[in-house]
């Protein structure tokens, strides 16, 4: 039941991506700094993409019978 905490805070990452874009587009950085920021941004966006791709579709239903938590796959019935 315990889920591994994902390190990536997606919302935070998106904010960072925007900041990097702004800094890069501003053009005030040296070439070295620009390349560094560029790499940082590309890495982060890849991380976000991987995060999205790694997620797995799961539709489950919890069954609360006292202390024990049970979970099973759930398929909605048609009317």
């Amino acid at each position, binding site marked *: *039941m315990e*889920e591994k905490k*994902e390190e990536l805070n*997606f*919302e935070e990452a*998106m904010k960072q*991506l*925007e900041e*990097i*874009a702004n800094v*890069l*587009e501003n*053009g005030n*950085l040296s*070439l070295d700094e*620009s*390349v560094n*920021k*560029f790499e940082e*941004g*590309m890495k982060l*966006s890849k991380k*976000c*993409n991987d*995060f*999205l*791709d790694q*997620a*797995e*579709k*799961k*539709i*489950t*239903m*919890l069954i*609360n019978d006292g202390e024990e*938590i049970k*979970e099973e796959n*759930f398929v*909605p*019935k048609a*009317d």
Partner: protein
Amino acid sequence: MEYNPITVTNLNKYIKSKIDSDEMLNNVLVKGEISNFKNHYTGHMYFTLKDENSLIKCVMFKTYTTHLSFMPKDGMKVIILGSVSVFERDGVYQVYAKAMKQDGLGSLYEAYEKLKAKLSGEGLFDESHKKKIPFMPKTIGVLTSNTGAVIRDIINVSTRRNPNVHIRLYPVPVQGAGAAEKIAEGIEFMNKNNLADVLIIGRGGGSLEDLWPFNEEIVARAIYNSKIPIISAVGHETDFTIADFVADLRAPTPSAAAELAVANIDDVKSTLFLYNTRYKNALKKKLQLMRLSYEKCMARQAFKNPTQKINEQYIVIDMKVKAMQNKIQLKLKEERTKFIKQVSKLDTLSPLKTLARGYSIVTDSSNKIIKSVKDLKEDQNINIRLADGEKQAKVL
């Protein structure tokens, strides 16, 4: 005596006129439970109103049904305003309803307003307490019935927006006695075990009574105390429950709740792609700028023809060397002239000229010039130097 019967039509006409002339029956307010409800395609409604012991037929014509704020159904307790009249063809009397409202709702509305005011006063609806709905929740907890359209709609919309979404349903009854307690328990359970990043609680549309669990204090407090952000989606867009006011976000429908909870992955991906493009363009631009300033720099004389300066220097050096050479040459010439002058001067003063005129120089053996006869001794060897050479001699 002859029988003088009247026709059935006339009888019914008579009954009708009797009933129609009765003021009480012209404007009657009656309460009861609906059964045999038929919503005819013409827009008229046919049903039976009953209580424990009796029943009466009812009809509500389209002119009036369009003003109804709810859809009547079997089992619903209602109050009807209308008139009683006879349908001559069938010989039945029935209620011709003009208006209808749900019975027993008065107390519910009162309770709703009272609780709303109380919780509002306690700050349960305060914006400042509302939590932000996470942008990309990993797990979406759903508290609703495990049957029916709501969970299906939520699953459909969610998976359409993000095929990899994780939906965790906690099934609860969404109407009837005990539903509120179950819903509150579910919210607490999800929180205690940290089973979701965002919760959707909701149900489909229904009467005020159907939606009632979402107007109960226990649910309101559970929502307020939840650490997991909650989106409420109760009934239709026009239904506002207490749960909607307490929830961190209110969705007009369950489908809308799914849209609010689940980011559209295509949008997110294209946003990510857009960032990549922005980065690439920014870097490209940077490189272009660098190239431009490099080219500008290289276009300057020093870089364009780096040897020119050196060549110029060479020319200067050459010129200096030449000047130096000229100066030396001149000096040499001067010195040479001076020297020749000296030499000719020396020449005129030379004793050799004197010798040529017939003089001679006598020197002793040590080459010392003898200037006096007193310096000469007998048998002494001397050297006589004449213009054309030397000769040894002996003094007599």
